[in-house]
């Protein structure tokens, strides 16, 4: 048998070097060019404006329901109205609102937001790039306590997870952006909802 080749070792060292360079250079987060572009254009967060409809599902206790958000972005201000179907938990469909502000700091554009739903709970979070994270509290009557959530925003979908450390509840949420026609329909529903509220 011939002398042991050194090429496998050279290959692995090279592979680890390239992988380390990618890991520690921040290539995956955002390139320098993209960071500059984001600094120059603070409105280039993922395009959130529109109607998002989907579901939530607690994967521990195997219950779930519908979820929807109508998000509006004007300049650096974000506002949203939404509904969550908590019928599986005995309190029906609940409505909520969210507000947020887009800011630019150290080359990163961030959307910080708060949300509240009367009789359900409230919370806050932030969106950096395509990553969403935050926490909140579910108040009585459900009284699940503190929860955290994380999600990824894509062009047409939002997928995330949530956890309730006090009760060990956990689950997923999935939202899909609706088409312009569906958004127009939702706009009518939203207008009627506002009319009825006034």
């Amino acid at each position: 048998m011939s002398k042991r080749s050194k090429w496998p070792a050279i290959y692995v060292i090279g592979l680890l070097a390239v992988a380390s360079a990618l890991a520690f250079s921040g290539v995956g987060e955002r390139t320098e060019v993209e960071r500059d572009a984001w600094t120059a254009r603070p409105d280039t967060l993922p395009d959130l404006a529109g109607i998002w409809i989907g579901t939530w599902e607690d994967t521990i206790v195997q219950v779930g329901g519908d979820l929807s958000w109508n998000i509006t972005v004007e300049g650096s201000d974000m506002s949203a109205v939404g509904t969550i179907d908590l019928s599986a938990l005995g309190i029906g469909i609940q409505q909520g609102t969210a507000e947020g502000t887009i800011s630019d700091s150290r080359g990163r554009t961030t959307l910080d937001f708060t949300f509240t739903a009367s009789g359900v709970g409230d919370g806050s979070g932030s969106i950096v790039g395509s990553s969403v994270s935050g926490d909140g509290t579910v108040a009585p009557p459900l009284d699940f306590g503190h929860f955290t959530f994380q999600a990824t925003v894509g062009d047409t979908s939002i997928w995330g997870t949530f956890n309730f450390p006090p009760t060990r509840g956990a689950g997923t949420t999935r939202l899909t952006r609706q088409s312009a026609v569906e958004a127009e329909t939702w706009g009518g529903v939203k207008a009627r909802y506002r009319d009825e509220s006034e």
Partner: protein
Amino acid sequence: MTIVRRGFSIRLAAGAIDVFLGAVVALLLSETTGRWFAERSIVMLRIGSPDTFWHGPVPMILGILGHFAHGAPFALLLVLLPEALFGAGPGKWLLGLHVTSGDGAPAAAPQRWLRWSIKCVGLWCMPLALILGSSAVAAVALAATAVTLAGFLVAIGPRSLALHDRLADTAVFGARRAAPPAAP
């Protein structure tokens, strides 16, 4: 030292080294290729679609570990690539093992690539499934992984040939310390 066909235990140790290195590479690539494959999993598993079959705690766990878990097959594939290129991956190289032809002669490149393709079928099928967004190809990848893992256990036998060795007419040889002469 004599060059002999090596058995199951040392090959399992070599495989463990490869898997460890694969995990390291998967961690390092988690924010680049790992994130890309994790995002493709949303398409592959139809996450967000009403008709998705992907329910329960597994998707949640994979979601939390997504950048690592979905990128791991590709990372391990990269780690094992030297087996096809040079006849020894990092685990085999460290333990002095080498892929040869069935009779111990140097394995030709087509033989090494055939062996690698069979051994790693699950590892290259899974990234392919994510690229194509096909859950059917992913199912094939999982089934193929199960078959190749079971096929590796065949190397426990006296000929020390795993399934991929038998199909590609290869073997794994390495140096072994010569037995001391028998006492007079």
